């Protein structure tokens, strides 16, 4: 369901976010105690939401192949382990990943639009997106131009997202706000709104290249923006915190936030993702612990 221009809000108006209140709410979420069956369920759910990611200058075809195999077979020693949601790579590796993952149900996501800085001409960004889609990417993770945003050029961000969305065709669009560079929660809210009204299917916190990457307060503000967008339009936008979520305990805290902010309809890999690489192994370790009662050495879990 697309928005008509007349319903698009004036992005120069700031929706105030109270940082103290947000942090207090996050602290309350973190007191939730997740035990037994509900813990095992959540660990498996979290694993199925992982976008296994490799975004290094030193990436190689071999490394991408390994990661794809890991995505399809996270831990074959144990039954009923779900596959992860997607593998996230640079454009050059999309075709290889697509071939390796063929028929597995695991998606290929590609970063694009001059990731991670976003400093390139619109023309070359659009070309890059088209290239990724042609190569077979199911999902495009774009970055917004933070320089233009911080300048106050909100119309530019809107047009940029809308143009990329058009270039995506059937591919799903995730819009990376790089919240570590936006700095204030007011800005996070504003950038979320711009991205959603311009056509994002997902909004995503970070590239993982800037510190801080995903934080709970930032994620909560984005979840609340998604909630308001749903109240107004009836359209469900997905959420992807990325970077810095390394252990299962923290991942479960994110799921608690989703559960109590947006409800069960967002607790699926279609609506919520973790952008992470080391998280998967900690989730696996905790799943094995829940099922067998003992922790196993990290050497029992493949490091691909």
């Amino acid at each position, binding site marked *: 369901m697309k928005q008509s221009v007349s319903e698009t809000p004036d992005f120069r108006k700031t929706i105030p976010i109270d940082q103290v209140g947000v942090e207090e709410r996050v602290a309350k979420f973190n007191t939730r105690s*997740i035990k037994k*069956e*509900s813990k095992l369920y959540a660990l498996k759910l979290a694993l199925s939401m992982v976008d296994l990611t490799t975004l290094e200058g030193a990436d190689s075809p071999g490394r991408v192949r390994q990661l794809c195999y890991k995505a399809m077979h996270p831990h074959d020693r144990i039954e009923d382990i779900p596959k992860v949601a997607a593998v996230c790579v640079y454009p050059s590796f999309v075709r290889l990943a697509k071939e390796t993952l063929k028929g597995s149900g695991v998606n290929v996501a590609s970063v694009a639009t001059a990731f991670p800085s976003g400093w390139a001409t619109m023309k070359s960004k659009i070309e890059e997106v088209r290239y990724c889609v042609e190569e077979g990417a199911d999902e495009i993770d774009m970055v917004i131009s933070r320089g233009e945003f911080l300048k106050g050029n909100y119309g530019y961000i809107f047009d940029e997202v809308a143009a990329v969305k058009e270039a995506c065709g059937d591919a799903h669009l995730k819009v990376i706000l790089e919240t570590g560079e936006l700095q204030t929660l007011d800005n996070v809210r504003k950038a979320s709104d711009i991205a959603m009204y311009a056509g994002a299917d997902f909004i995503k916190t970070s590239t993982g290249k800037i510190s801080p990457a995903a934080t709970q307060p930032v994620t909560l503000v984005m979840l*609340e923006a998604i909630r308001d967008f749903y*109240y107004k339009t009836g359209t469900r936008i997905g959420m992807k915190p990325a970077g810095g979520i390394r252990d299962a305990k923290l991942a479960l805290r994110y799921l608690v936030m989703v559960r109590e902010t947006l*409800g*069960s309809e967002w607790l699926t890999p279609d609506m919520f993702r973790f952008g992470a690489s080391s998280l998967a192994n900690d989730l696996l370790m905790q799943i094995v612990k829940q099922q067998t009662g003992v922790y196993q050495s990290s050497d029992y879990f493949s490091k691909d």
Partner: protein
Amino acid sequence: MLKETDIQKKNRLDFSTGWSYDPAPESRDHITIKEQYGHFINGKFTKPIEGNYFPTISPSTEEEISQIAVGSAADVDAAVKSARKAYSKTWSKMSGRDRGRYLFRIARMIQERAREFAVIESMDGGKPIRESRDVDIPLAAAHFFYYAGWADKLEYAFPGRKPKPIGVAGQIIPWNFPLLMAAWKLAPALATGNTVVLKPAETTSLTCLKLAEIIQEADLPPGVVNFVTGAGDTGAAIVNHEDIDKIAFTGSTAVGKIIQKAIAGTGKKLTLELGGKAPNIIFEDAAVDQAVEGIINGIFFNQGHVCCAGSRLFVQESIADEVRDKLIDRIATLRVGDPLDKNTDVGAINSKEQLDTINRYLEIGLNEGADIFQSSCELPEKGYWCCPTLVANVSQSHRIVQEEVFGPVLTIQTFRTPEEVLEKANNTPYGLSGGVWTDKGSKIFNMTSGIKAGVLWANTFNKFDPTSPFGGYKESGLGREGGLHGLTPYLNI
């Protein structure tokens, strides 16, 4: 009455299906509760002179936890005699530094036994363990720490004066924050050199009696603190005792008025901390999602058994529908049930009697034509429970807007201008607390100086700190507790 799921609203969120949390009960293994408790007089647990006991029950299970002594006038007299002796022989003569050392010791011991206190508080009073663990017990310790620091600095608190203690203080506390209210009362009284006879509320005596164990272990001189348990008659015996110099009472406005009449002309000093019906005002320029959290925390904290609860919500008309819809979805996520479960947000109503009061008010509201809706929470079979409740379509003339319900019941009204909301906010016999939510600093100062209440919060609600004075205007009481102000009721300056 409507359930929240009956409300017609587009684009609802689903909080009832999918992943849910398994029970996560806090262990009760580490606590000890005796089968029977006497009074705590002159440093010892003593049997009641008339020999009567009453049961204290858990409001979440209706099970009897222990037997508590009924305090007679003779018991009160024994307690006052012991307090008087301790006052004149030891406590008033002790240096402030030494008094402070005892208080620091008590504070540390409360911290050390925090888990035990939290569990007993939740069992006996029904409040969620998350609150007793994170709010009640830490704050109780903090009050002792804070006033321990003042004990040897009273001359600096009141420069140029020679502050002297008053004598024996009679203190009567309510059931909503049992240990915390005991700490609020005891810490300043002891720091300033007074001795105390304190009566906990009849439904929640246990943590006070556990505090008596700490007081014993801390080697506080016998008689400095005395606890006499019982109900209204015991309280009356304290109020009317001739050798008490000061009464400090926290409770209902009705009882506060009786006490004020009773001690008129006796020369006893008095502080009262009574009821409230606080306005919580949301402007259209507020951070709405955080304001919604503030509304929830303002009224559903401790099942709404809070004298300063934000029970009257005023929302600017332009955002009234948005806030209402958000509140409806938010109360659906509140978990009501076993107070000892670490994931419980709203626990049990403190007593059958209080549940009847709340239900009576809901009926009054219905008869007045209010739209009342509750979250569709599943309630345990046993115990006293009330689902979080929103009351809309009401005005200043409705009794449910005027009177203190003391439960998880929020009335919702709208306004258009600051003048209008100020008039409505102040149009109440109470004046204990209030809240203002706006992103605009000047509006905060403008509104908070206009609201006639003793405690005001801006962009937050129900925040407590020992350094901050607390107390009411109008029928919400007189005198202040907490902070530097909290020393004055216990001193002749």
